[in-house]
């Protein structure tokens, strides 16, 4: 039994390493714009989902304000780049401003309401997130309202920028990939995400990580053996908020556009929840698996279904149920099946400890 579950945990680790390798070499392995879009989104969402897992999976805090913090970071970078022009000072200032607003909001929400019951806390975060959404659409002179804002990013990330030039002045290629600003932008996203993810891995493996789990398991006993539960909860809420905010800034720099749909909408919150549940709560690696599966499904399930429907055009009924417009229905079906067969999420179920009764 022990060996079997160790193998499960090792398998999960292997899959995660494989995904990391694929993301590292993504620009060379999948040489089209859309794939790179997908890879960058996966990187950012891994961080976003992992930071949410700190709350829901490790500490047992249910929050619906995670996209709000993501949005603060995205809008911070976006507004700074828009107002100050495409410089590194704008990137830095906007990112820090977004993180600071997130931190202040997290402290305020945390201290005011982490003492109350989980359900009330969830409601308060929901209210805060709604307010942020309304503000983003109302303050349109800064945020561009529902349309969002487009802006330029530093020259290094421009597609026209040549990182390496050949002798005749053209952009150099490596394995057929242009060494241009787009590549630099992707590696900026990848490296930032990697740093934040490794930070979180270290955090959950440190003493503080076990305290968070203890609070999730039995908050009264954690308090009784000497851990101030409110302080630890507020702390993890702040860490999670700042990381979400930084992920938002990175995504804003990548997209060169920030609007309610990319940074603030409630559907992102639902995506995060689905990813964390599919991947497995309280595992960190689950965030990687969940984010990869969901983003891939969102981008490619329609294409796959379209191809399948065409291939089966002569078969009765099947082309109809495989119609690409039905993709959300199939996503739902897949989700239900995953939850049924992997009740603890994919990473959680595979790596389940033998020690459970």
């Amino acid at each position, binding site marked *: 039994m022990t060996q079997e579950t160790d193998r499960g945990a090792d398998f999960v680790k292997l899959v995660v390493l494989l995904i990391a390798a694929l993301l590292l070499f993504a620009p060379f392995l999948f040489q089209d714009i859309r794939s790179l879009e997908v890879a960058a989104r996966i990187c950012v969402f891994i961080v976003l989902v992992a930071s949410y897992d700190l709350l829901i999976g490790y500490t047992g805090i249910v929050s619906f304000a995670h996209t709000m913090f993501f949005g603060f970071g995205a809008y911070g970078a976006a507004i700074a780049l828009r107002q100050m022009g495409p410089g590194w000072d704008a990137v830095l200032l906007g990112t820090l401003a977004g993180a600071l607003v997130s931190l202040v909001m997290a402290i305020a929400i945390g201290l005011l309401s982490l003492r109350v019951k989980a359900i009330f806390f969830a409601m308060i975060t929901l209210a805060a997130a709604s307010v942020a959404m309304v503000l983003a659409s109302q303050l349109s002179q800064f945020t561009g309202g529902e349309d969002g804002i487009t802006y330029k990013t530093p020259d290094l990330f421009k597609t026209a920028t040549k990182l390496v030039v050949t002798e005749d002045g053209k952009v150099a290629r490596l394995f057929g990939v242009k060494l241009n600003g787009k590549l630099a932008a992707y590696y900026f996203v990848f490296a930032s995400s990697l740093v934040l993810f490794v930070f979180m891995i270290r955090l959950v493996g*440190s003493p503080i990580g076990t305290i968070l789990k203890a609070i999730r398991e039995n908050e009264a006993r954690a*308090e*009784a053996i000497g851990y101030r539960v409110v302080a630890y909860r507020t702390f993890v809420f702040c860490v999670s908020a700042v990381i979400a905010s930084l992920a938002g800034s990175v995504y804003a720099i990548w997209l060169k556009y920030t609007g309610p749909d990319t940074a603030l909408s409630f559907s992102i919150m639902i995506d995060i929840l689905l990813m964390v549940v599919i991947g497995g709560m309280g595992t960190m690696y689950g965030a990687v698996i969940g984010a990869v599966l969901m983003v891939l499904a969102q981008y490619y399930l329609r294409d796959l279904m379209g191809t399948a429907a065409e291939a089966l055009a002569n078969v009765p009924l099947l082309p109809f149920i495989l119609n690409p417009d039905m993709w959300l229905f199939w996503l739902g079906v897949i989700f239900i099946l995953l939850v049924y067969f992997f009740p603890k999420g994919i990473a959680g179920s595979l790596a389940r400890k033998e*020690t459970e009764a």
Partner: protein
Amino acid sequence: MQQVHPMSHPSLVTQDLTIRFGGHVAVNAVSCEFRPGELTVIVGPNGAGKTTYFNLISGQLGPSAGRVLKDGIDITRMPPSARAHHGIGRAFQLTNLFPQLPVLENIRLAVQARSGKAWNMFQPVAKLTELTARAERYLEATRLEDVAHLHAAALSHGDQRKLEVALLMAMEPDIYMFDEPTAGMSLDHAPDVLELIAELKHDHTKTILLVEHKMDVVRALADRIIVLHNGELLADGPPEEVMSSRIVRDVYLGKSTEAA
């Protein structure tokens, strides 16, 4: 034979400690002093307020009136975590563990709480070998080595009770509060726990409070007995004196001496 130190300063004092739930007074003006090296057994019928009295001392409840002093420091308004840092340790009547964490991790958490490493964010837990070594000591002391890597939820009831005691010991407190540590334990497990308490007692520096019903246990361990009845302190004194007192026999011991 008994190593009581009546002259030493009390480590724990409750002054007129009172809590009301609506109109019901669960603990009524209980004033008591507890000294290092002394094992006090608290007896009383069900609903007498024994566990509530414990909750007021360890901070799960705040009193309606009265004070709790630890080594002269007023801890009445402190949350349980702060009291733990002042050396108040408590084991619970109903098993109160971290069910989905391994046994060793449960104990390590209790060791770590007062180690000053609680806010350590970057060192992997596995590298804090000193904490682990200390946790392993309590693991051995409570004879839980064989189940160290099982989740607390997977343990037998008896082992869970032992882990409960291990958590208390791992906190390394000055005041040990045991709330019916052998409740629901089989006959082959109960002596283990009682031996542990006896060992603590032999240290002669710890203040031990024990809620216990089993009269043979009370006789074997108690330096002093206090009797709670309807939230009030009914009797307080050496075991022989309290057990022979008429009023105590009437309200409490009358029934259970036959069984014991």
